[in-house]
């Protein structure tokens, strides 16, 4: 497989407002607006003690679509996503997959429903190696029921070849890997199992520019394969670049979900920082953000 080395400067060149990045969007995704949602989360609420981390939020994603989930620190993005991946059960609300209500009580339920997650914390066991982490909970076994470590390593080498060809340390405990290498392992784990829905919570936070571009390319590719992707990111350019729609959260509430083509970066920033939908924001407020 040929490695794409884009000599892109860091930080990535900001596409002009209005999303000229649309050039990268596949036609399939543009047509996504018409298809039925793959996953729908309705009126989800999660509270920690008295703190309403997620307050009556509804979002959805369609096949072949990337939905960017943005918001300030502590807005509730991760918590919302964790309730979809089974890490934390929502207090109320409903989750529908292909239009049918489902119960996601634990990570296994989510995985069985085809939902894979890259957690913000990566969720790696530091003391075991990359293949062991990749297959954690879904080990490949030999005919006699023992762990087939060779087969797992082989599969890991293959996925990694796609994601991060420079990755070589398949036998070291992931503790000894760099932040970016660890993130690669977490991403590899999410994409290896033919997911229908992918949750990516800050997937590129620790990656270098080349690896970041690799992940972007991967997202585009997965999108074209028809996956629905929730992309949580603080990099607004990333989101504008990759997402079809953007959902903005503010203090646990959903400010709104907007089509990328309908908004400017400034308007999205306004939603994130001021917690108001674009039509409620006036020019001065947006101006004040500059």
């Amino acid at each position, binding site marked *: 497989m040929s490695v794409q080395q884009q000599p892109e400067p860091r930080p990535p060149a900001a596409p002009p407002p209005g999303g000229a990045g649309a050039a990268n969007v596949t036609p399939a995704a543009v047509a996504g607006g018409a298809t039925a949602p793959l996953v729908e989360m309705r009126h989800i609420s999660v509270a920690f003690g008295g703190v309403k981390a997620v307050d009556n939020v509804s979002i959805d994603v369609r096949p072949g679509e990337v939905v960017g989930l943005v918001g300030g620190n502590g807005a509730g993005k991760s918590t919302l996503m964790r309730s979809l991946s089974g890490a934390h059960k929502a207090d109320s609300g409903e989750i529908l997959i292909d239009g049918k209500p489902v119960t996601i009580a634990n990570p296994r339920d989510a995985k069985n429903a085809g939902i894979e997650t890259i*957690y913000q914390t990566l969720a*790696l066991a530091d003391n*075991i190696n990359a293949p*062991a982490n990749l297959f954690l*909970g879904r080990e490949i076994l030999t005919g006699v029921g023992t*762990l087939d470590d*060779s*087969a797992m390593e082989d599969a890991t080498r293959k996925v990694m070849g796609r994601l991060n060809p420079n990755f070589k340390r398949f036998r070291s405990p992931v503790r000894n890997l760099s932040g970016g290498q660890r993130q690669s392992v977490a991403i590899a784990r999410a994409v290896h199992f033919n997911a229908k829905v992918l949750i990516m919570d800050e997937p590129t936070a620790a990656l270098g520019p080349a690896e970041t571009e690799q992940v972007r390319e991967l997202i585009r590719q997965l999108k074209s394969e028809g996956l629905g992707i929730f992309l949580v990111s603080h990099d607004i350019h990333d989101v504008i670049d990759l997402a079809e729609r953007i959902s903005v959260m503010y203090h646990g509430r959903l400010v709104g979900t907007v089509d990328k083509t309908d908004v400017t970066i400034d308007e999205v920033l306004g939603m994130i920082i001021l917690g108001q939908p674009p039509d409620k924001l006036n020019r001065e407020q947006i101006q004040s953000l500059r």
Partner: protein
Amino acid sequence: MTSSVATSEHETGSLRDRVMDLVRATEIDGRLLGMIVTLIGIEIGFGLYTGGSILSPVNLLTFATQAVQIAIIATGMVLVIVSRNIDLSVGSVLGVVAMTYAVLMHEVFPTTIGVDTPYGWLIALGAGLLIGIILGAIQGFLIAYMKIPSFVVTLGGLLAFRGLVFDISGGSTQAPDDTQFVVLGGGPLGSLGGTISWAFGAVIIVAIALYLYYNRRQRRRFGFPVRPMWAEVGIGVVGLLIVVGGVAISNAYHWPAGLIEQYAAQHGISPEGLVIEAGVPWPAVILLAVTLVMTFLATKRKFGRYVYAIGGNPEAAELGGINTRWTIMKIYILMGILCAISAAISSAQINGATNDLGNGYELLVISAAVIGGTSFAGGVGTIPGAVLGAIVIYALRYNLQYIGLPSNNQDIVIAVVLIAAVAFDTYSRRNAT
């Protein structure tokens, strides 16, 4: 396609680097090697002190056999500590099971199925195993499903089960055991004998060869780097030498005069010139089997993988969809089984059970695991390491007894050596990375 993993990054490095590379190429755990070196150092030291007499086969066999009870439980303690838990109840569980064996054989069987029947001791073993499993399951359930800290639960177990020993025994020492059962304790009468020992050694050598071959083939299947051939053959030869040496040492211990006379009298022959090789003691055979099975569980089964994952990052294990609670509960059930096996050997070695049997074992078992490289931070530890840890402790204790050092001073020496060993290991590891 197959490249060598031994390609050194510092070919012009110092001697130390080159030695480290050699070791790395064999993929042997450095900690284990350190323990073996420590053990050899202890033996050489005492050998010099006693003019070599301490290195005779009987001495090596004696301390190895004495270490078995602790070593067996320590293999399980590794998994307990790796999963970020603790088990303080092992000595008391052992006490309960040992007393169960003894009461069955000493009080129950004589009035029911009869004394020294061919199967009585097996019934006792089965019953003890069941009790071990039940006690382990109770504790495991409280820890895994009720989320009570393992320290608290097993501290409770330490007290409650010791009390239970007393209830089972009615307060008396229960002795003797079944004569067939006593064989499990080792000694000349509890050993394989010369011929079977060699057969046993041969089986192990074949197993090592097969294992090395299988591993190599498995890695070639996917075109992975394999060990250089010299390392592969080297490991095989070292394994062969260890097995042959072990059997030879065991067979070099001959039945003592008293036993020879008894044997001669029973068989109506002359004791003159009669030599019987003792061979590998049963406790050593049992320990070897336990170590292999436990290593297999820990490294080749999902269960072991999950235990280590839980220790490395409990949240990651949970998010990976692992049934962490059932895994933890299984660890404690396993501990119950190991305690029951160890109890059989403990009881056989004193041919009965006293109310204090197993008292204080928790500290020895935990020490063996920790000295063997298990970390209280969780996620790290090996089973062979713990076994070696136990053997090092008993080698020291035995040798100090042998030279007649008073017991209080034995404790001092053991403490100093153990701390020094662990400190050296920590130091060299810090320098290595």
